[in-house]
């Protein structure tokens, strides 16, 4: 991954005031500048309720990354999907092979597919202020901020509304992918769309597939 803006700020901050600081300053300087920047795996957590298609969204994203010759992992932390129960699904994308099999503990991005989970699940755990949270909600950024206390980047998107409008069904999982791609640029939109068409045209027909693609694209353009 390229150095992120937040990390560079840390570096400048420490250089300015940490030059003659105690040893802990130098350790945290080293940690923030090298260890964190060295993190090569991009990690995402989807928070959703069973039945909302978070697993499908995660798998589409992983397949799109595969399209770009990346190494991927996409896995749920639940067993049998219980409709309506809070669930988490994880995605890892990397230029290097991924060896770990632990759940994602320090995400780069968190996606909340169901806003009723805000306040129920600890979605912002280990989410730093230079990282991002995407929330499927009709509320604005400030409301989400107040609900979660998260001071980083919040991207609200009415994915359910979008999918109802375009597809005619509540399918926030596909629409939210557009937003996720726009925010993270972790894969190309065209690859997400390609994978979706390839995987779903046979299952749900060309018409519905194209409507889903429209929802993805509209969410992408909705910043």
């Amino acid at each position, binding site marked *: 991954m390229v150095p992120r803006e937040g990390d560079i700020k840390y570096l400048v901050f420490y250089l300015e005031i940490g030059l003659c600081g105690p040893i802990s300053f130098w350790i945290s300087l080293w940690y923030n500048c090298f260890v964190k920047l060295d993190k090569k795996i991009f990690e995402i957590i989807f928070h959703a309720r069973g039945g909302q298609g978070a697993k499908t969204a995660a798998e589409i994203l992983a397949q799109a990354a595969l399209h770009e010759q990346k190494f991927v992992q996409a896995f*749920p932390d639940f067993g049998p999907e219980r409709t309506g129960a809070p669930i988490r699904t994880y995605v890892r994308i990397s230029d290097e092979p991924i*060896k*770990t099999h632990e759940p994602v503990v320090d995400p780069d991005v968190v996606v909340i597919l169901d806003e009723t989970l805000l306040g129920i699940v600890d979605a912002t755990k280990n989410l730093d202020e230079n990282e991002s949270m995407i929330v499927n909600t009709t509320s604005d950024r400030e409301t989400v901020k107040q609900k979660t206390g998260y001071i980083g980047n919040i991207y609200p998107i009415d994915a359910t509304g979008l999918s109802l409008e375009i597809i005619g069904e509540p399918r926030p999982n596909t629409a939210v992918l557009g937003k996720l791609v726009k925010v993270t640029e972790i894969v190309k939109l065209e690859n997400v769309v390609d994978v979706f068409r390839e*995987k779903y045209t046979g299952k749900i027909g060309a018409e519905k597939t194209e409507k889903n693609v429209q929802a993805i694209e509209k969410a992408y353009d909705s910043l």
Partner: protein
Amino acid sequence: MTYQTDKTNKKALTGGAAAAEALRQINPDVMPVYPITPQTPIIETFAKMVADGEADTEIIDVESEHSAMSAAVGAQAAGTRAMTASSSQGIMLMSEVLPIAAGMRLPILMLVSTRALSAPINIHGDHQDVMFVRDSGWIQIFCENVQEVYDNTFIALRLAEKVRLPAMVIMDGFTTSHSVENLEILENSVVKKFIGEYNPKNYLLDFEDPKTFGPVALPNFYFEFKRAQIEATDGVIGEIGEIFGEYEKISGRNYDVLESYQLDDAEKAIVVAGSTAGTAKVAVDELREQREKVGLLKIKLFRPFPYEQITEALKNVKKIAVFDRTVSLGSIPPLYSEIKNSLFSILNSQFSIQSYIYGLGGREIFKDDIKKVFEDDQKGREIKYIGLK
């Protein structure tokens, strides 16, 4: 979920789907199946492939896992390639038939997606189910990731048919079976050539030379049957190397009965089997960056257990942590127990100890046989037999 990028052999699949992909390429003759979480995606995905005409396996929907293994025994004994898949309580229900498959020397392949045992009920991954049946006579191969599930399926089949013993390919329930990971697949023709045709030495439907399978063996012969089976099982370690070598030629992936990771100069090491080996490698990498001399030994082949290779791999390590994802109630955990056994030979022991197997199948044991063990020099084989003809 299957999706192949253009003109490449690279896919991203779950462990379950990777197993089904390997099954498609093997195209077994018969597959008796019964669903159980977290194994179901294997048979579900494969059944769809058969329905779509991508394989012409005869899938038999049976009424229980006991029947699944029984049907596999019947089909394999008849002279076909039979396979199945299961988890947890399903393996428990099969457990009556598992030693029959091994005793009849039938190279049945079973894909296992591991899961905890009830009670309390739990569907998630641990190794209690496969460890419960570790003495059933089946070869057991653990997989770290989706790629290994795919590769080990072919390796296990070749091995099973070579030594005429059944084999389990073991993936961690959910962690591997339901996790999408990168996977490189082989050409169908390459797989076909690697696994070859199944030409059983003995089979039921051989009308020229009729045979019977699994007849009664009373105390006068049972012990010798078991000794032959023990020899065949121990022989696995001698045969597997060549198969690994052949597989490397077609895949570029180099495997062994165990994997030493950063072990050469390690003072401390973790021993672990299954998907946790991957996570532990990352832990080792991070500690190595801090110049800690740590390493990892991954167990791939658990049955038969490769004692000598493990002794060799661990001989210079000062501190060993053995990870068991199971319990052996009333005893020490199985992998820990095996590692202790492996290391015994290099301890400067104050005493000598010897194993004797006796009395199988009702074979008599006499007082004079018992007295003789006190005169035994306890050299040679670690396991000796009393009363074997």
